[in-house]
């Protein structure tokens, strides 16, 4: 019964969040200077031409009415039709999902496989006062250098020497710099937090070796924040690594939505943003379940 209530609450709050996001994106798109008609027909179109085009897509109705129609359609699973390609948005997004998914998988795999061990090792090796200077500086850089700067640099260097910029490796590498750094930092902080707990002292007092203690008593206790971060990074990338996909000309969801913003292809942008938000919400629910499984103290509350 309580479990049912919990799920009901989660579903309700997710629906409200999605609704709020849809209002925001709908309003933001309509407030942008230059509507669909102006963008498509160019600066020399006559008012009659613009009006005709707007009428064809229902853009002459009030914003509220447009939102109502769109919401009703989304409710039945119809994400609308791209005003540029005249194809259903759902099909267009589905066609681009594998590209984004592959990119996400590569970057997240790198983050977990490299970031977690780095974080654990630097935490266990940490000495009082040492602060992990070099590692903190490197991971700090990795977290804060913007993707567009690093991505542009990589594209410039690679194309300068006439190398291929196609494929997934380079964009995944650019994305994983951030993901690895963030994962390593979060892991290190989580492990340092566990290492000062009393039960670790108790294990040390029993004469256990450092790696035995890490394997049996640290990893699971430190997993919560790392799982949360991994889920956030995954959701962020699945929603479309906008800039990197665009820079490396990868036909994923991110570059598709960025193009759609430029062309004021409302239905595509709305669907893209809604999808990204939905992925975030689903990942959050998943990670809550997972953290509950990993830490029994949290799992029993539902």
């Amino acid at each position, binding site marked *: 019964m309580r479990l049912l209530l919990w799920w009901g609450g989660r579903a309700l709050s997710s629906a409200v969040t999605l609704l709020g996001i849809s209002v925001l994106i709908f309003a933001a798109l309509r407030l942008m200077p230059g509507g669909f008609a102006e963008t498509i027909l160019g600066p020399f179109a006559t008012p009659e031409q613009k009006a005709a085009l707007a009428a064809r897509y229902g853009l002459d109705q009030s914003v509220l009415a447009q939102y109502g129609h769109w919401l009703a359609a989304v409710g039945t699973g119809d994400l609308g039709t791209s005003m540029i390609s005249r194809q259903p948005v759902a099909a267009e997004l589905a066609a681009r999902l594998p590209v984004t998914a592959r990119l996400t998988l590569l970057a997240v795999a790198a983050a977990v496989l490299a970031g977690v061990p780095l974080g654990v090792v630097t935490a266990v090796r940490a*000495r*009082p006062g040492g602060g992990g200077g070099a590692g903190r500086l490197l991971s700090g850089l990795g977290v804060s250098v913007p993707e567009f700067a690093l991505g542009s640099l990589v594209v410039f260097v690679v194309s300068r020497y006439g190398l291929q910029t196609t494929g997934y490796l380079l964009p995944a590498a650019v994305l994983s710099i951030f993901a690895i750094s963030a994962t390593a930092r979060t892991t290190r902080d989580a492990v340092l937090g566990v290492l000062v*707990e*009393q*039960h670790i*002292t*108790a*294990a*040390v*007092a*029993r*004469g*256990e*070796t450092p790696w035995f203690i890490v394997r*049996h*008593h640290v990893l*699971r*206790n430190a997993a919560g924040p790392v799982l949360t971060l991994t889920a956030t990074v995954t959701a962020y990338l699945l929603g479309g690594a906008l800039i990197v996909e665009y820079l490396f000309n990868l036909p994923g969801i991110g570059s598709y939505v960025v193009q759609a913003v430029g062309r004021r292809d409302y239905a595509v942008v709305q669907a893209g943003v809604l999808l990204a938000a939905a992925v975030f919400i689903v990942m959050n629910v998943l990670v809550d379940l997972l953290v509950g499984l*990993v*830490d*029994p*103290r949290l799992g029993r509350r539902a």
Partner: protein
Amino acid sequence: MNPLLEVDGLVVDYGRARALDGADLRVAAGQTVGVVGESGSGKSTLGAAIGRLLPRQARVEAGEVRVAGERVLALRPAELRRLRRSRLGFVFQDPIASLDPTMRVGRQLRLVLGRTGRDDVAAQLARVGLDADRVASAYPHQLSGGMAQRVAIALAMAASPELLVADEPTASLDAQVREKVLDVVFALAAGAGTSIVWLSHDLPAVARRCDRVAVMYGGRVVESGPAAAVLGAPAHPYTAALAASAPAAAPPGVRLRPVPGRPPVLTGPSPGCAFEPRCPFAEERCAVERPAPVRVGEQDALCHRAADLTGELEVVA
């Protein structure tokens, strides 16, 4: 024969604060020793130093700790782990926090037993008075404090150590549970021939259960000897004051006498006797000259006046 535990002139600083100011302690094989003193007297630091479990910011400035003749503070990491595994056991104040919160009790016990090649989780739990069917599959937060402390005791005693250091193991437990948990500790230790160093606030309980008592003040053991002698006929004025302030020492209706003044906060070696500012018997030299151990009756006391005060120190008003 050498004693099992020898602590000689141990000095430990936390940053600028001095926690131990030349502490000495001896424990023979099979002996039970109660270490008593106010909060901040250095009990916990002394207990942690026995297993080299001092917090990272602690620095050992001088002194020596030997367990079965091995110099604990000088051992290499692998030797230190072997010493902890084979000779030492520790029980801490907060029982639930000293168990891994993400692991079932049975599995934690099995990990420890695995080292000794055994797998008798149920028998180990039965030894501390717990029912394996109920407890083995529970997580620590599902246990009461008393049950969790029994589990912690089972973990510490699994390898039958030669010395068990118990740092106020019952301070966070209900009064009714305390005695039962202490019964378990002392019965298991007696069965295994394990010595106990029990850090405690509870003078009457120490008097009832321990062979010997060590009284700490200002980072030193100011008096030690057989429990009945130390608590019945103190040789050090501080022991007398501490015993008089214990609620159980006074007959009903008699006002307790708190130790006047405050415990010292040391930032370096105490120039004289650390108790001098609070001591009703202090002389001039007590402030400037560190007392050396004096033998009074069956006790060793760090007091310039211990010999003159024989028979003058009374516990009860």
